[in-house]
């Protein structure tokens, strides 16, 4: 389901794609979060890369939340919005995190992009707003990343953002051809890995304080409330 490879301070987490997160596959989410947390604690790792081996980073998926969810949202929250769930694990990782995005990036894909430090994108990437169907996606991060009104328009219009526009508004760090994507990501990872480990960890600790001062942590805490609201509204992923 998830492969991990560590080499020269760079850890690569690869999977077919990240759509299982969009359809709220708890087992997948737990495995991915565990991988990120373990690598964050690994003294031999400075950089963590998320890569989809398939053609799309996170293809559009028919979300199972909240329509097919039974019981309360607390179990869902434990897997998807808690402090040790994937998005907070990635956002508050002690290491530099990179998302490598090709093709369709919807739902969980965009939520992962927002939670990562760097995003290397192929020219054909399309970033869809995650806010309608993903209660665990973090609007504060979007506002900090692409500015408030752009984040609002992204959420409200429901139109994906192309790679070059994403680059222009700050969502993406670099855009390259699909053929050059893996090597560009590798270069960025090696560049970051050239920093001393303590420097990276110290920088990420300081970044955590900044993110929390801006309300990022509290926005993650709101996910259960958003999930309740979403369920009441009857919104599923196909609305996105």
């Amino acid at each position, binding site marked *: 389901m998830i492969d991990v490879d560590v080499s020269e301070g760079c850890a690569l987490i690869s999977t077919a794609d990240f759509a299982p997160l969009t359809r709220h596959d708890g087992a997948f989410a737990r495995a991915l979060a565990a991988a990120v947390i373990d690598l964050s604690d690994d003294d031999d790792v400075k950089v963590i890369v998320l890569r989809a081996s398939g053609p799309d980073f996170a293809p559009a998926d028919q979300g199972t939340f909240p329509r097919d969810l039974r019981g309360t949202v607390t179990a869902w929250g434990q897997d998807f919005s808690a402090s040790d769930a994937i998005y907070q694990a990635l956002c508050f990782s002690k290491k530099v995190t990179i998302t490598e995005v090709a093709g369709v990036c919807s739902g969980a894909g965009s939520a992962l992009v927002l939670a990562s430090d760097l995003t290397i994108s192929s020219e054909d990437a399309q970033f869809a707003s995650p*806010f*309608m169907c993903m*209660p665990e996606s973090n*609007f*504060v991060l979007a*506002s900090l990343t*692409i*500015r*408030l*009104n*752009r984040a*609002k*328009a992204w*959420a*409200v*219009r*429901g139109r994906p953002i192309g790679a070059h526009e994403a680059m222009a*508004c700050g969502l993406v760090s670099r855009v390259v051809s699909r053929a050059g994507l893996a090597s560009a990501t590798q270069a960025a990872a090696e560049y970051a890995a050239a920093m001393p480990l303590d420097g990276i960890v110290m920088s990420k600790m300081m970044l955590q304080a900044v993110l929390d001062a*801006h*309300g990022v942590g*509290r*926005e993650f805490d*709101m996910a259960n*409330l*958003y999930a309740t*609201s*979403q369920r*009441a*509204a*009857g*919104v599923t992923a196909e*609305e996105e």
Partner: protein
Amino acid sequence: MTRYGTAESIAAAPTQVLYEVDRATGVAWITLNRPEKHNAMSVPMRDRITDIIHEANLDDDVRVIVFRGNGKSFCSGNEINEEWGQRRPHERRRTLNVSYRYGTDMAWGRLGFSQAISRSPKITIAQIHGYCAAAAYFMIACKVDIVIAADDAKVGALEARFLGPAGAAASVHINRIIGMKAARRTGFTAMPMSGVEAQRLGLVHECASSDRLADHARNVAEEIASQDPGALLHLKGRIRAAEGLMDTSVPSVTGLFVSHHLQSAPDEMDFWKAAKEVGVGGALDADKRRKGAVDPRTGDEGVVAL
């Protein structure tokens, strides 16, 4: 609730702020209709906007609210030369309650019209052309969810040229929207942004030529309104909650306090003319010499306490 303004200005407000709902599309239109004043908003006009938004909020047919203006400009900001029950400048310096009423209740605060806009559960859009200045910039354009602007619109804190306070620089909201350097630039230089520049900075979502603006804004509004109403309410609720976490709803009252102190009363319309000649201090002194003026430090009419 107490309504401020003159009988005339209160009576004029319904014709100066028009409201219509297109029930077929789910779009409500709030049209500023005071073109001879570039749609400057009087206190009763702002009260009417608040009332309309409350009405739209409760109207299940309304999914999107669009602000627009008739005439050459979208809006030049708040009317600063009006009588609404305020006191003369030197008296206002001793009446914080009046300052608070104007600065927060009527503008930024929880009772203010800008808060009614930013806290609306419906999706809000501003359609901007010509001038979008002062309060129109930071109390409408920066409070709505989406701004559609003419390429050549002039957007910014133009009031800082003559009122002095640069409230735009202190607004958490504006700093979030266009970045801190740009926010301070708009506040401290009073230089307007074009629609194109405002789009580049992140305030404006999309631009159109002036002759295409109305159609473009309508298309955007109707496209959004075509979405599921429950989904839109959920999405807007999420955005409002996140904005609360980011403290973007924190009103910046200081600029409005100062604005209020510098605002001219109806019988003081020559205040700024005098200020140009003898400075603000000299103009305040001249104001005190006017017939009927009372120096709050002495209680004597027409006497200047030095």
